[in-house]
């Protein structure tokens, strides 16, 4: 979550703050969970029949180019 470009002293300060601030800890944990949930749920699945139809249409158009 933390920007990899952040300076090491800043990272250490943030880590120390997180250990003593419940609000920030909750915000960090729930934000991390938000990303995990979106990453683990494929919200828009391309069905096989539509996929084949799109392939046929794409390749037909490309052949006409």
């Amino acid at each position, binding site marked *: 979550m933390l920007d990899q470009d952040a300076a090491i002293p800043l990272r250490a300060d943030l880590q120390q703050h997180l250990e003593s601030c419940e*609000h920030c800890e909750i915000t960090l944990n729930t934000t991390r969970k938000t990303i995990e949930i979106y990453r683990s749920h494929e919200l828009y699945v391309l069905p096989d029949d539509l996929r084949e139809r799109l392939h046929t249409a794409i390749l037909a158009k490309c052949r006409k*180019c």
Partner: protein
Amino acid sequence: MAAFEKLVRQYDRQVFRIAQHIVQNREDAEDVVQDAFLKAYEKLDQFQGNSKFYTWLVRIAVNESLMRLRKRRTGRMVSIDEDVETEEGSMPRDLADWSPDPEALYGQSEMGDILRRTIQGLPPGFRVVFVLRDVEGLSTEETADTLGLSIPAVKSRLLRARLQLRERLSRYFKRRDQKQAQDGVK
């Protein structure tokens, strides 16, 4: 053509997902997939080998998606800069913790509806950054390059998109928690 067909099979699902996230409409997403691959095929000679084919294709697909969105909104300009000046999500407001396993609170289908509804509420300029960076796994540099944004702009939008999504999801996950707590008191 066989090599190009292989590329279509390799990347069609990702392009469809990204298009759906932006246009929020299945028919338009189908058109975007077709147009994006056709444009990629037509411009293959312009493809510079130093950038990955996938990020080049995503750039085409994002532009096609934004054009579709603009057409659907009867000519009103739609860009990835739209509505990004909102202050919402700059600072966390909802500081309540979530259930230890929020996904267990809802069925798979209901959870899908919640996640779709929640991300659809983000301005396009935040939504597309979150999708490319956090869902599709592009690097900050690739996301910036794909969208024509600076790296600080990508970082800023990503942070705000994450916080806005977290805030909106908290309503669902906390509400159920609160309801359960209230039920427990009765």
